C-alpha cells in the first residue's frame, strides 16, 4: 500500500483540482510546507484555523489546504481577518499576503492591524516583484533595478517590512528566507503561538520574473543567492552600515508581550 505518512497529506484538499498555479522552483511551496509542519506541531484543530489571503501568487495557498479558507480581495486580507477574530475570538486566524499585497495596496491595513495588536499570525511572502501580473516592481523591489514597469531602473526606495511592522506596533516580528527552513519553522511556531499581532516576512524567489533583475537563471542559483545574502540579526549587530547594505537580515526583530485588541476591548466594554 502507498505510504501517506507525510504530514502534508493530512492537510491538502483532496477535492481540489490540481495542479496548483505556482511555477516550478517557486518559494511559495516551501513556505506552504513549513506552515503545514508548524500547524501540525501546534496541535491546532483544522476546524479552528482560518486561513485568509489576499491576491497574488502566494495568496493562492489557502485554496489548497483543508482549513476554513478565505481568498479575499487585493490587499485586504487583514481587514477580513480582523472581522473574523473579533466576531469569533476562538478561531486561530492566519493571513498570507504577498509584498505588493501587504505593503502596497494593503499597506494601510497592515500598519493598522499591527497597531491594534489583533491576534493574527500574518505571513508576508516577499519575492520583491509582482509575479502574477508579469513582473512589475513592488514596494520591496530594490532601488535601481530594471523591471517591466521600471524599464530604466527603479527610482523608488524599498520598504523594510520588518521595521515597518515593528514601528506600527506588532508584538512579534521576524524574517527568514525560504532557504533557511529551520529558522522559518521556528519563526512560524512563534508567530502561531503569539498573543497579539505577529508578522513573519518570508523572503522568497520568483523564478519567472525576479530572475530577470537578479541575473540568475535557476531556482537553485536563486536560493544560493538567498543563502549568500543573508545575515542573522546577531551577526548583523556588530557590523557597520556598508557591511549590512544589500543583506537580508534574518531572525527575530521583536518579541513583546502586550495585551491584545480583544483583551482590551473586552476590558473596556465589560
Amino acid at each position, binding site marked *: 500500500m502507498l505510504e501517506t505518512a507525510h504530514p502534508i497529506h493530512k492537510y491538502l484538499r483532496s477535492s481540489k483540482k490540481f495542479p496548483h498555479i505556482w511555477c516550478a522552483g517557486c518559494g511559495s511551496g516551501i513556505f506552504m510546507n513549513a506552515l503545514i509542519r508548524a500547524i501540525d506541531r501546534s496541535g491546532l484543530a483544522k476546524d479552528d484555523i*482560518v486561513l485568509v489571503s489576499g491576491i497574488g501568487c502566494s495568496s493562492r495557498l489557502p485554496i489548497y489546504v483543508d482549513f476554513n479558507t*478565505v481568498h479575499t480581495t487585493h490587499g485586504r486580507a487583514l*481587514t477580513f*481577518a480582523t*472581522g473574523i477574530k*473579533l466576531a*469569533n475570538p476562538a478561531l486561530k486566524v492566519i493571513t498570507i499576503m504577498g509584498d505588493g499585497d501587504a505593503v502596497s495596496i494593503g499597506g494601510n*491595513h497592515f500598519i493598522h492591524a499591527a497597531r491594534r495588536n489583533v491576534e493574527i499570525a500574518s505571513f508576508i511572502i516577499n519575492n520583491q516583484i509582482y509575479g502574477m501580473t508579469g513582473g512589475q516592481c513592488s514596494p520591496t523591489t530594490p532601488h535601481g533595478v530594471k523591471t517591466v514597469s521600471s524599464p530604466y531602473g527603479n527610482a523608488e526606495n524599498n520598504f523594510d517590512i520588518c521595521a515597518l511592522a515593528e514601528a506600527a506596533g506588532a508584538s512579534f516580528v521576524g524574517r527568514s528566507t525560504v532557504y533557511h527552513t529551520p529558522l522559518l519553522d521556528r519563526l512560524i511556531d512563534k508567530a502561531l503561538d503569539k498573543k497579539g499581532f505577529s508578522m513573519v516576512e518570508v523572503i522568497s524567489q520568483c523564478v519567472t520574473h525576479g530572475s530577470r533583475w537578479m541575473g540568475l537563471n535557476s531556482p537553485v542559483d536563486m536560493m544560493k543567492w538567498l543563502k549568500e545574502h543573508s545575515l542573522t540579526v546577531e551577526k548583523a549587530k556588530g557590523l557597520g552600515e556598508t557591511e549590512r547594505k544589500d543583506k537580508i537580515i534574518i531572525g527575530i526583530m521583536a518579541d513583546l508581550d502586550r495585551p491584545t485588541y480583544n483583551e482590551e*476591548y473586552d476590558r473596556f466594554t465589560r
Partner: protein
Amino acid sequence: MKKPDTAKQMTIARLLLQGNEACVKGALAAGCRFYAGYPITPASEIMEAMARDLPRAGGSFIQMEDEIASLGAVLGASLTGAKSMTATSGPGFSLMQEHIGYACMAEIPCVIVDVMRGGPSTGLPTQGAQGDVMQARWGTHGDHPIIVLAPSSVYDFYELTIQAFNLSERYRTPVIMLADEAVAHVRESIVLPEAGKVAIEDRAGPTVPPEWYIPYADPGSGIPPMPRFGDGYRYNVTGLTHDVRGYPTTRKDEVEPLISRLFSKISKDIDRLQWFDSYYTEDALVTVIAYGSVARAGLQAVKEARIKGMKAGLVKLKVLWPFMRQTIDAVMGNSSRILVPEMNMGQLSREVKRVNRGNCEVMTLNKYDGTLITPLEILRKLEEIYPC
C-alpha cells in the same frame, strides 16, 4: 391637571428617535452583532450608537482605518455567522464598491447603509441628495444582482433595516439601505413593535454532515446553505469565479451557471419584493412615484392636489432594486401621466421611462442644489402637467 396614565405609558414605548438611531435599533432587533465603520457625515450617528449599544448586546464594534477595511471586516465577521453591517455616505460608499462585489460573488450576507449626501466627490457633506441610486445598482464592476431598500421616515428606517437583514440572510447577498440625509437626521416620535412581533430570518445552515457538504451546490432554491467558520464545514471562499466546491475555475460550464444562479436566486422571488405604499391611486390620472424623503413631500402635494380637485396619487417605493417593474406597470395601467421627483438629475426616472411601453407620459422634477424638494414644488408641477 390630569395625572398621566403610567400604565399606558409602560405598555406603549413611544420613542423620539433620529432616523440613524432608528436604523441602529432595527439592526439590533434583527440580530446584528458586528459593526465596522469609519466616521462620515451624515451617517456617523449610526456608528456612534453601535459603538455604545453593540457590546451590551453581546456583539462587537470596531472603527476601521477606512471604508474598504470596514466592509472587509464586516464580511469576515459574517463568515463566522455574525449578522454584520456598516454605514457610510457617498465617498465611503464609493470605496466599498469592490467588497460589495465580493459579497455578491462569495454570497456573504451583510447590510450596507448609505446615507446619501450631495455629490460627486466630497460634494455636500451636510446636505441631502438621492444621487447614489445608480451607484447602488451598478457601482461594483461586472454583472451582479443587488437589493436596495429606501426608507422615507424614521419608522421606515427601523423596519426596513430589519428587512434588509432578513433579505440578506435569506438570499445570501449584500443588501443596501439607501437613506437620504433628511431621513437620517429627522427626529420623529415612533412606537416600536414589541419584541417577537417582527419576523427575523437567519441564514440556513447545512443539514448534511461535513463530508457531504458541497458549499456552492444549488439545493434547488438557488441559495446554498451557509455554515459558520469553526463549525466543522471547512470550505473555500473566493472572489474568483468558482466551482460548486468553492475552488477557482475558468471553465465555461462552471462560470455561466454560477453567474446565472447569483441572479436567479433573487429574480425568482421578484413577486415577493414589490414593497410599496400607495395613496389615492385608484382613480388617479397622474401618479407621483417617489422614494425617500421626497415621498413625504409627494404625499403632502397629492393631498393638496386632491383638495384642489385633481385626481392625483402617490406610490412610495421601498425597494429600488431589483426595480419593481410589476408595481410600476400597474401604475402605468391606471394613470396617463407619471411624475418622478428626485433629488438628483434623474436616476430612478430613467428606469421608469425604460419600462414605459408608451401608454404613459413620464415627467421628472429634479433638484440637486442640496435643498429638499418641497410639497409646493411638486404641487406646482402637478398643476402644470395635470391632464385636463
